[in-house]
């Protein structure tokens, strides 16, 4: 049986090591915070905060304290605030060890598309292009196929790119793949998923 959203998030949390500064995207990546356990992880919110805490208790929301998804949040004892230029300086400068992001499409060369569907509403890339260009390790978490059953793990992306050759690892409901020379390498299969099932759902080249 393929992984569900929470299992994917739990698997993504295994990527995180003690002491890491990490940026989590919107959607499944947000759930990763629930699975870091005892590890000393500091979450960045790219609107200008390190050490993002959980949602506030009802009635304790502070309009001056939001995350990059514009949700009310809280601070921790390690928290620091800074301006947007400094925030993206640390992103672009490679100070954030890992970003865990959602995706619409990923290619076998590590290209990522997650910001725009031409002809549909265009909302903007926000900080996604900066994150994929700058952080140490880019981990994508997404369903392996779209609602029509078509692979989202492609030879080449069809949608406008967020970044070219930026993805290091892909975690889907079917398993874990690494971007390596020549294509993707299977790192792990989701519980009960066979290699054949994963290959069948993957348009991209799978090597070794």
């Amino acid at each position, binding site marked *: 049986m393929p992984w569900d959203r929470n299992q994917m998030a739990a698997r993504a949390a295994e990527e995180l090591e003690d002491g890491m500064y990490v940026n989590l995207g919107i959607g499944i990546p947000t759930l990763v915070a629930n699975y870091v356990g005892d590890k000393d992880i500091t979450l960045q919110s790219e609107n200008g905060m390190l050490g993002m805490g959980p949602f506030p208790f009802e009635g304790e929301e502070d309009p001056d304290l939001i995350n990059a998804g514009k949700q009310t949040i809280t601070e921790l004892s390690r928290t620091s605030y800074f301006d947007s230029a400094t925030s993206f300086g640390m992103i672009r400068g490679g100070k954030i060890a890992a970003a865990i992001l959602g995706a619409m499409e990923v290619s076998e060369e590590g290209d990522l598309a997650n910001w725009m569907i031409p002809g549909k509403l265009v909302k903007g*890339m*926000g900080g996604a292009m900066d994150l994929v260009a700058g952080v140490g390790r880019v981990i994508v978490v997404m369903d392996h196929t779209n609602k029509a059953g078509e692979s989202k793990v492609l030879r080449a992306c069809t949608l406008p790119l967020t970044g070219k050759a930026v993805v290091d690892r892909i975690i889907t409901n079917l398993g874990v793949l690494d971007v390596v020379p020549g294509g993707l390498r299977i790192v792990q299969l989701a519980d009960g998923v066979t290699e054949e099932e994963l290959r069948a759902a993957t348009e991209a080249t799978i090597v070794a």
Partner: protein
Amino acid sequence: MKKVYATADAALDGLLHDGMFIAAGGFGLCGIPELLIDALVRSGVKDLTIASNNCGVDGFGLGKLLDTRQIRKMISSYVGENAEFMRQYLSGELELEFNPQGTLAERMRAGGAGIPGFYTKTGVGTVIAEGKEVKTFDGQDYILERGIVADLSIVKAWKADDTGNLVFRKTARNFNPPAAMCGRVCVAEVEEIVPRGSLDPDLIHLPGIYVHRIIQGSHEKRIEQRTTRKKETA
């Protein structure tokens, strides 16, 4: 040199002209210069180009200047919260230049710091790179982005002294310092103007040299996504 003005309208007096370029602080609805935006609406100034990470929401923040058709062009990273924006954009009434969020922040900071151009990896190989110079440093490609210098900056801070030294609060700091830096003139609205000497000189986020006019006022500070958790009961 008096920097403190009585009202937002007074603080903008003499600074506005049609077709001007304004940089605005704020992220979403957090830390936005609400009072100065309202004064821009009242002024009727039009054909504005505005560099701001977002464009408010329908009927609030910079969204108000969309309703009155005062904006000609936005330079933003994300405009997904605003139906009127999309309507004007898709109908061709409104021009839009997408900038990656960090590129926009750095362009403002660079413009204020006398840096007309800088190279970044962000956007290499994407539509953002189209038409931009590419240069290779140490085997890796980067694109040239330009510093922004605005005719006017409008920002929101928590506290100011009368010399324009500013202090921000939590994530409401966001784009406000870089936006302030890139303006030929900067007007700041704050929640409280405190006496000179009552801000610790070590703890001033933005020195008064960047701030030309200040007003004090009360802010709605609307919350866009109210997310909470329940207190666990014992």
